[in-house]
């Protein structure tokens, strides 16, 4: 029985939260990797673009709530996301037309594009803060828990409860559906294949008659979808605050690079690598060992490898180690 308790404990505090957080990171990381692979620059506006999409989701959620449209036990935000995506794609294409296109056409070095993306970051951040303000906002409604800790204990008669938030399940489900559709699109359709070809070798792709304008446009559209959904899921699960979104850019970058930048599948797994290592290394295992070990061997301290303050630092250290030993990432992306 103790062993089952220990497993439930790990599931409750490590596995489920890490899976949800990892999914959110993974969507962001695929976004970064697509932009990097096809448009060839590191997009420093990632976090703020995600918050921009989330902002529209919130605005639409408020509108739907005010006119009384809802999804019952599901959060209204799910209904709002498609509308937000339309606005987000519009914004992305607008930015591309007025900002990035010029540098792409004049074949500027990637560093210059990265600098430009910092300008976009400032502007996006300002727009988000002017429209919705910098404060913390929760826009979740509907049923909060799928399984409550107390109910679970009663049901199974165990000491440890397993609480599963509905947002966690929604996050994982939506991510899986979205990512599998995306991989199907990239690997099976003609447009997806031409995107991959363009990412591999631009000149060859142009020679074989691939239209670069179309590729770029589709990239921004996919990026808009990923950014909005990723941001909205994070906001649903935790809360929406522009500053947090800006900070999330850092683990997202780490995930993309760890997975091998330019490689969407690597980025997807990279998100989970980062999320799991952050939570595994900063969790206090004291209770776990109390269940597993005989009483005489019970640990005295918290059995915590690193204090939770260093959560972010963990992902960054992983990134540094990966950059040092395997600069192309775990799953071989572009070589640096």
């Amino acid at each position, binding site marked *: 029985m103790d062993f089952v308790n220990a497993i439930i404990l790990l599931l409750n505090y490590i596995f489920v939260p890490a899976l949800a957080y990892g999914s959110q990171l993974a969507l962001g990381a695929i976004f970064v990797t697509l932009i990097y692979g096809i448009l060839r*620059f*590191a997009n*420093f506006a990632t976090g703020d673009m995600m918050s921009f999409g989330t902002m529209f989701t919130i605005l639409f959620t408020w509108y739907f709530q005010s006119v009384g449209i809802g999804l019952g036990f599901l959060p209204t935000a799910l209904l709002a996301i498609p509308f937000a995506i339309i606005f987000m794609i519009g914004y992305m294409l607008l930015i591309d037309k007025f*900002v990035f296109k*010029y540098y792409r056409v004049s074949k500027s*070095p*990637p*560093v*210059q594009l*990265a*600098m*430009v993306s*910092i*300008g*976009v*970051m*400032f*502007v*996006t*951040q*300002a*727009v988000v*803060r*002017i429209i919705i*303000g*910098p404060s913390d906002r929760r826009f979740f409604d509907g049923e909060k828990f799928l399984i409550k800790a107390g109910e679970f204990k009663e049901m199974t008669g165990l000491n440890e409860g397993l609480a599963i938030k509905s947002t966690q399940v929604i996050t994982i489900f939506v991510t899986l559906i979205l990512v599998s559709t995306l991989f199907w699109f990239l690997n099976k359709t003609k447009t997806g294949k031409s995107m991959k070809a363009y990412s591999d070798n631009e000149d060859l792709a142009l020679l074989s008659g691939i239209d670069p304008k179309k590729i770029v446009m589709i990239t921004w559209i996919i990026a808009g979808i990923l950014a909005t959904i990723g941001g909205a899921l994070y906001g649903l699960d935790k809360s929406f605050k522009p500053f947090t979104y*800006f900070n999330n850019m*850092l683990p997202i*970058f*780490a995930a993309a*690079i760890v997975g091998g930048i330019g490689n969407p599948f690597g980025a997807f797994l990279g998100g989970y690598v980062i999320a799991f290592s952050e939570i595994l290394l900063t969790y206090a295992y004291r209770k776990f060992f109390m269940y597993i070990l005989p009483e005489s061997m019970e640990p005295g301290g918290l059995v915590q490898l690193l*204090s939770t*303050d*260093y959560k*972010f*630092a963990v992902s*960054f*250290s992983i*990134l*540094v180690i990966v*950059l*040092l*030993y395997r*600069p192309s990432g775990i799953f071989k992306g572009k070589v*640096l």
Partner: protein
Amino acid sequence: MRKNLNVIAAYSIMMGLIVLVGIFQSWNIALSIFNLCLISAVMTMGANIQWGYAGLINFGIMGYTALGGLAAVLISVNPVQEAWSAGGSNILFSLFLIVGMVLAVRYVLKKYEKTQKRTYIISTIIILGIIIIRFVSEPGIEAIEEVDPAKTGFLGGLGLPIIFSWIVGALFAGGLAFVIGKVALGLRADYLAIATLLISEIVIAIIKHEDWLTRGVKNVIGLKRPAPYEVNLQQTEWFINLVEKFNLSKLNLISDFAERQAALNQFVIEGSSVFVKLCYSGLFLIVVIILLILTQKALYSPWGRMMRAIRDNEEAANAMGKNVVKQHLLIFVLGSAIVGIAGAMLVTQDGLFTPGSYRPMRYTFLIWVMVIVGGSGNNFGAILGGFVVWFLWIESAPIGLYLVNLTTAGLDDAHFLKVHLIESVPYFRFLMMGAGLLLIMRYRPKGILPEKIEIK
């Protein structure tokens, strides 16, 4: 003279703007803007050396700034004797162990060929080392943090005048840059940007959470000052006389003695804080001028020419026998050290160290906007960039308010749009910075004062 006309014109406009703030708002505000402009200028010079001279992209400015600030604390705060006796020996022993660990790793790296076995040995050494160090330092850290946590709870510093920290801050930042440079300089430009950004976040995390060293988010306040205190100044004879002399014409208009005295007091209070700020301005100006002379000399020296050659064509420079890796590391360390000085100056001026306030937006990206806007590769441009951008950063709120009032003049005062816009005036600064950066990068990619190399 003629060819420097644009430099002179740009600087006079900038100075004119600051004087205007002095006249229309107050001299206090004008001087605090001016002081922070000077500090920003120092940071920008550091970043400019790396980016403009050598083309190295460093997004870790925040980390070096914070290390400079840490130096100010470690130099100027008086040592906390109880804390040292409580846990000092443990900390020193852990420090010794860290040095031992690094030496061991170095030894293994030198001694053995690169094999999988070597990697395993190194990782074992590091993991074991970390476990042992945690074991040794834990009781010491706990003991230190328990010493009067409301007031101290950390080891304190050396109790020296804070001015020394400007040099020590440079050493700290340079040391960190050396380590980062050894690790990360081989990466391609945009990866280097991301890596330095993340490493600087690690540095901040450490400064924030290692309370025994920095007091963490409890902040260190009341640092020593190189300038006199306002309260003391207000009691000093010569200062009161000086203020009286300055404001004689205004004071003479008041005939009543008691009223005149009250007015004089008011002038003394205002004057004292202006005077203190002027002291800082003087100190900062000295630093900026010294750095400017040195960087200009470096730019036109054979070394500067070599750096530009490396920047413009690494392979060719390498083929000419220049050691690119070594020079990159050197310039990375030099630039970061300058940023470290700025970090120490900043804490010196504020008189307090708040690890929570170091955010990448303010200390990394804003500085980069300064470099790009001012003109990379040109020291005068970098300083100007620091001035222009910081001035706009501060003054964009009043300007934004003015614009909002202008555009919504037709609306009712309680109209929700107007209220909302006025509330969000502080964020117009981001909009301004972003738009400014995008416009400059598009239409004047070399900055306000572009790089100009004269061949002598």
